[in-house]
């Protein structure tokens, strides 16, 4: 049995017997030099890898601790949620084998309550509150609102994220135009269809026993 401290013998080396001693010694010498060369190559290779890793990690650590100041990026909260590929999702006791059936299952289960009846009579008892004034949006409001938005958040279908919008609004003319659009939405009582497209990324709900229904996501 091999103890952890022992080194394993070189499997390629021939046994050194007195009969073929000369050849063997020459062979061993040549192999030794070959081994040495390999060792040297391995060493250089390892050093190169080590250095590359060091540079990479140092850069990463510096980025997290100093440049973007987001140490919580190290935590599992912001990691990409992976979906299990083993369980089949079934909707209304039918397995979703094709992508089309999966999209339908997801869409139907998230919008299953479309036509639920309501009784608005209960609202009659509620006293009418005072009318709220709605002054137009100002530039400062827009600036304040956008300052709080994270630059690392995901963009919508138009691929424009806060990261791109922040330098744009630094220009006063652009800012004025954008605020004008926001106020026009209120004045014309409409929300442009361009803003209505959304992307739903399906992620699993934590701590579920089974992930075989669309409701677990």
């Amino acid at each position, binding site marked *: 049995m091999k103890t952890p401290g022992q080194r394993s013998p070189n499997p390629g080396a021939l046994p050194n017997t007195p009969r073929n001693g000369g050849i063997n010694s020459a062979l061993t010498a040549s192999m030794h030099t070959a081994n040495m060369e390999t060792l040297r190559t391995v060493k250089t290779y390892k050093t190169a890898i*080590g250095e590359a*890793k*060091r540079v990479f*990690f*140092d850069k990463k*650590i510096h980025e*997290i*601790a100093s440049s973007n100041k987001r*140490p*919580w990026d*190290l935590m599992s909260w912001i990691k990409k949620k*992976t*979906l299990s*590929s083993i369980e089949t999702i079934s909707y209304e006791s039918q397995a979703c084998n094709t*992508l*089309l059936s999966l*999209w339908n299952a*997801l*869409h139907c289960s*998230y*919008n*299953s*309550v*479309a036509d*639920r*009846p*309501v009784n*608005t*009579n*209960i*609202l009659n*008892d*509620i006293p*009418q*509150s*005072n*009318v*709220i*004034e*709605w*002054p137009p*949006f*100002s*530039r*400062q*409001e827009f600036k*304040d609102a956008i300052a709080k938005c994270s630059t690392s958040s995901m963009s919508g279908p138009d691929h424009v994220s806060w990261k791109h919008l922040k330098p744009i609004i630094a220009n006063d003319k652009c800012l004025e135009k954008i605020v004008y659009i926001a106020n026009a*939405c*209120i*004045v014309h*009582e*409409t*929300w442009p*269809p361009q803003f*209505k*497209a*959304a*992307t*739903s990324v*399906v992620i699993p709900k934590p701590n579920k026993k089974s992930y075989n229904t669309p409701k677990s996501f």
Partner: protein
Amino acid sequence: MSANSFLDPNQLGGIRQRSTIDAGLYLTHIICPGWLKQCHTSVIAFNVAQFFPSLNRLFLTKCLGKAGLSPSIINFFNSYHTNRSTTYTWNGFTFPPFNTNVGVSQGSVLSSIISAMYMVPIIKTFKKRIKNLKEKIPSDILSFVDDSLLISQEKSYELSSVFLLCSYNIMSKLLFNAGLVTEHSKLEVFYFTRSQRPPNHPLDLTSVGGPVLTPKPIWRYLGFFFDCKLNFHHHTHFYATKCLSTLNAMRLLGNAYRGILPLQKRLFYRTCILPIALYGFQLWFFKGAPIVHNIYELKKMQRRAALWVTDAFCTAPSKGIEAITGLILIHLCKLNRRHHLRYASIPPSHAINSLLDTAHSKNQTPHRFATSNLTDKQQVKLKSPIKDVNECLNGVISCFDPTHLLFSPGMRVVDHFSSRITFHSPLSSSDEDIYAHMQKLDHAFKQSQTLPYHIAIIADGGVKKSNVALAVTHIWIDNHVTNQLSLQAMNITLLETELMSIGLGLTPTLVNNSVYNITVITDSMGAAKKLLESRPNPHQRAILPIINLIKSFLSKNNRNAIHFWQCPKKAEWPRHKLVDDQVKTLNDTSILSSKNSHLFSQKKEVDDILKEWQTTFATSQKKGQLFLDFEDEKQRVITPTYTKGGS
């Protein structure tokens, strides 16, 4: 919405300043006085299934109308909700957009407030109905987005079971009318009692279509682990263990090439681990609460963290390594006091107001178990977090006015006159930049003194060791000081003093009709910017008269303008130095003040806790044996601190 009191106080979540901690604190407080009155607290927790997609458009439109929104805004919201499309993404696969015409879109910024407004009529009608019943049911409701609680506090379990059953029946019918359905599988019942035997009364909800509920020993609500006696042992154990396992996993970071620096480890602990460990501590940390076990769990966790940060031996003394790492001993006292001070800033329609004393309740009807509704004897006996909040607020001057019209978006001074109020400060603190800035300042000052209708104000403030604050202002016209004003105050911070000095100069100048252009020179640009800060801040009451004057001054004429100039102290600008010298030489007469300003109280908490840490560390008996003193370059003993990366 908070201003016209449409939102219900018992509704939390989705609205600014209504957090899970508030919900937990509300529940914890009403249990404690209930025990004093020999009442057990029984709770049913229910959850609305698929809350966001279930919100009905028709119902929502009527809700918005009741909330006081004008028809054009309601039409805008209708347009906002209709004809939406969603693209689903699954493991990198995407599918062309589907039309979604239900509920409010998840992830939208407006969803949280809209969902909160949807629940308002339901809760209000519920309260009205249980009030109008022949047999009055003293049930309470607490809702956090879609996680709601029905609370009954009675002497007998049977009675509270009946009350809970009735209120649940009313509630589920109301929810059904609003197009919402409760999830029966997630219904839970729990009893809070001080008796030795934990109660095990099943609650039969079969008559209203629900299951038979039996209480569990531990009940989880909004991330808090409640137990019958409110000792929160399981809660702290859970979060301390969670942090310990994270810490153990973080040792892997040490194995990556060369590892990370101790300073970075400390930063990681303070930002990622400490907030988890201290989640919900406000519920169990108050005067008279049994906290030994809970603190022990947290201390254990912090010790492990300090060992990881310093890579010290596991036998190293805790106090020593914590001092080296700059991790203050679990400083719940400070955090708790800070949290109490937060309640000075809450809007009048907040749930916690109904539990406070009448002086702080902001005209809200007190709850049955509010501190103001208890007898003197009961008040002395009471141990609850809200009692501590009351005591803390008694010593602080009320300074918030979050619902005032001048601070509401669209009505503020910055919204209308931002182009006529300018701020000039040096680009950086380097000597070249300061020199360039001072040249400009000189020019601006000369202009203000030569041009007609221009005026300059030079303001400065200082706080003496006796906590007396002095504010001095010089008003300059035609290269002469025409007015010298000074004011004293007690127990305020330097920032507030600077703000006071600016206000002191601005008040007489703004009402002067022969002035068009005002140049304010101060050494604290932070204070000047506070005048126009849009967020709720602890200066609101103090700056309100000045803001009113600024608004009327700027709206009088289009050429009226105010320019703020920073004059760094190290530049030693002669005119500013005059003011500064006056601050230093003025005699301070201490004034009796029973109350502190909000910021001063915050600062005092930090100073007190640091002082306490340094004294306990200096007098520690183990220090000489297991841990030696460190000295700095000037051979002074380094005292522990947690600011700027620790000692």
